[in-house]
């Protein structure tokens, strides 16, 4: 799919990383237009929940801080609201870049260290399988991704909330709710994967 990370990209500060992002990440070609004004980070509604925020993330890419970028919570906490992209004075497709960095992080095996990545994986499993999120199964999948003991621990810690949700019909027990045409959804997703594979080189 993606061109492998540059070979020398094992040092902490890797000069080739910015070029690699430019050539391989969706929207990366426009990242060079960033003038570090900070409009994106300032506009981000959950910027306070991010360790870096987009502006700094881009600076880290320029500095070649590959591992820090892929391990950053920024790429996982982005809600795709597109505030940053709309407001960027330099036309940088911030959201695309962040999303694709997350995808690349999965691809290159960075996710294990990042909680948000596990959650995203669980979320995606539910969405892909049922066409919607099933709170109970998704949460279980997420919790148990940390291992059996940790999964139990987390489940118990949130038991009260879970019971409350069931009572108020926010979560349901029994067979997961599904959309009508899961087959159709699978076909759509397969097609999307095919297009992605075909056009996986950068460009917004």
């Amino acid at each position, binding site marked *: 799919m993606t061109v492998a990370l540059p070979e*020398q990209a094992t040092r902490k*500060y890797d*000069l*080739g990383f910015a*070029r690699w992002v430019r050539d391989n990440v969706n929207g990366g070609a426009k990242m*060079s*237009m960033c*003038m570090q004004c900070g409009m994106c980070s300032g506009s981000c509604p959950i910027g306070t929940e991010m360790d870096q925020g987009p502006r700094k993330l881009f*600076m880290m890419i320029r*500095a070649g801080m590959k591992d820090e970028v892929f391990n950053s919570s920024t790429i996982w906490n982005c809600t795709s609201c597109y505030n940053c992209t709309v407001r960027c004075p330099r036309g940088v497709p911030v959201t695309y870049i962040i999303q694709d960095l997350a995808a690349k992080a999965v691809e290159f095996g960075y996710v294990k260290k990042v909680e948000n990545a596990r959650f995203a994986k669980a979320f995606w499993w539910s969405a892909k399988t049922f066409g919607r999120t099933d709170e109970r199964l998704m949460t279980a999948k997420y919790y148990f991704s940390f291992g059996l003991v940790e999964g139990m621990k987390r489940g118990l810690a949130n038991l009260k909330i879970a019971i409350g949700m069931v009572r108020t019909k926010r979560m349901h027990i029994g067979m997961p709710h599904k959309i009508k045409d899961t087959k159709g959804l699978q076909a759509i997703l397969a097609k999307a994967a095919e297009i992605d594979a075909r056009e996986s080189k950068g460009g917004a």
Partner: protein
Amino acid sequence: MTDRKPGVYICKGCGIGEAVDTGALEALASGDLKVPVGKQHDFLCGAEGVATIEKDVADGLVNQPIIAACSQRVMTDQFNFDGAQTVRANLREWVAWAMPAGEEDTQMAAADQVRMGVAQASKMDVPEARVEEGLNTRILVVGGGSTGLNAALEAAATGHDVLLIEKTGKLGGWGAQWSKRMPHRPPYRDPQDNNVSSLIEAVQGNSAITVMTDTTVAETDGMPGRFNVKLANGSGEKQETVGAIVVATGWRPYDATKLGHLGYGASPDVVTGVELEGMLANGGVKRKSDGAVPRTVAFALCAGSRDPEHLPYCSSVCCGSSIKQALQIVEADPEAMVYIIFQELRTPGTAEEFYRQAQEAGVIFMKGKVKSVGADLTVTVDDELLGQEIPMTGLDMVVLATGRVPKATDPDKPAAEGGEEQLANDINPVAPIARAGEAEIATPAWSEAVPEGGPILNLQYRQGPHLPMLADGFADSHFICFPYETRRTGIYTCGPVRRPMDMAESAEDAAGAVLKAVQAIRSAQGGMSLHPRVGDLSFPKFGLDICTKCRRCTVECPFGAIDENEEGFPELNATRCRRCGTCMGACPVRTISFDNYNVQMVSEMISAVEIPDEFSEKYRILILACENDAAPALDMAGINRHSLNAEIRLIPVRCLGSVNMLWISDAFQRGYDGAMLMGCRSGDDYQCHFVKGSGIAEERMANVGQTLQSLMLEEGRVRSVEVSIADSAKVGKMIDEFVEEIRGYGMNPFKGF
């Protein structure tokens, strides 16, 4: 003037008639003031009003019409009468429009305006013009770089003969060595072909321009209209006469060997921007160490610029020229990795487009300061945005965008002798100018103050051989308000010798300097003053009978216009004089005067004001306002109907430098309660139209305190303030505050003496 025939003409238009009793003013003129002709008119500047005055002048009744109407700055054509000398008393902006209509105090202010106008006329004469025949109109351009070439072409285009001298054997300066130019035409995106060679051809093909290479100036003497210039080249010396001089001696790169911390000298692959230009122009960029084409290159911007240890200023082109070079490298090898490490990227003019172009081409811009460059080309960047130090490794080449040093001196010439002894600090070209409220700045010794090397023009002036410099060794050029104006009339600087700039800016600058030179020549021919007293025909006259040869005038003249003759008396170089009157303000025995402006005239005006007695509760504050900025600001205050305190009495002066401290003591002895000087900003960011005038006034003011003490008056009764032309809304408040303070002191006990 042997036979003065004043006539007072009072205008009732523009609201003056509603605000003051003009009939009473007319009665004052013909009564107490005994002016033979006194008239009022509904609309004095209209055809009928003007005709009335014209007729009186033609009939020989009046030769000094005193126009009590609007500001001296307006209607100058209407109130200009052949064979007569006009005096203006401002009833409109300074009284009717600024003070409450119909009140006693307003009427008193108007009456004093008329009194002052009549007093002024009584001490004024029509200036005797001094016109010299046969002045030279040729323009000398010193320096044959792109700026000098442009200056020569511009000067020739105005119809003047040009003498262009160049120190080296070749024309074109640095610019001729660049492989490409930063874009100077739309769409301002790509490096453009260097066209300096076509400039050289145009100069060489122009019959009005004489080019002398391998030539420098050995000595310069004289004044606008006849500068005698001794030119030196290998074969000897040659005397030439020119009318004006344009200096375009450009710049030299900052000495990179002082940048050891940036790896210069430690590795052959750390090069300067100028060295890189050499490679780009001669077959492409190669490493000096192994001849390989570098694939990963970092540019360290501000190398030695904006650095208090080196050059404190921004060299202005290195951001742009580094972008140009980066683009050239990426164009030659699209896979090359180019980093530009900047603190602030400065993209003046259209360079923002150029910056975008480089970003699009994939040049990577990093914001940070290069802390060090190692012999192995490891660049340590103090990354401001990440808040950490980043070591960049694996680079093939590091380019230092070194700054530029102005060539306001000639580094190859020996330092000029005699600078220090000549007239010590007063005329040290870089001596800081005093500023109100600031502790005295230590004047650097001549040797520290003047950059290494000798003077470019080697002026044979009493004030020393150098062109005055301002901060950081740049030629002083009235940086804030009037570019190109140096402190040596008829000599103008342009290009990076006065401020860092690129070739496109320098070309415009050259045109500006040339137009100034043309003005200097034309004004010299007409015996007229240059900016800002354009067209003034008066000159300072020196009453040598009582002159004590103290040389204050020579020392304080901001333009180096005065020399001394063999007997030690001051001698004016007429066309260097700008008529600021600073010499007049300086002279301790008050023997310097202009026909139309002199110490006695202002003294009479001060005395003409009627001072109400100590029981009246009416204060009188004298304001001496510089006619260049302060007086117009006061005019604007009236125009915008901001109120002015009715207890002030305003006298416009040519420059605060012309204020003789006698006036202040006169005022207090006459019973004024306070005095205020309003002038332009002084200091090294001065806005004084005569450069040093307001600063000199500041220095003189320091001694006024003693005078006041001897009169048993509070020092706070005198104040000097900086007023710019934009201060019209503030100036009234400044006055009110001052008047309030004076009221705190109470009335001047000298009233009635």
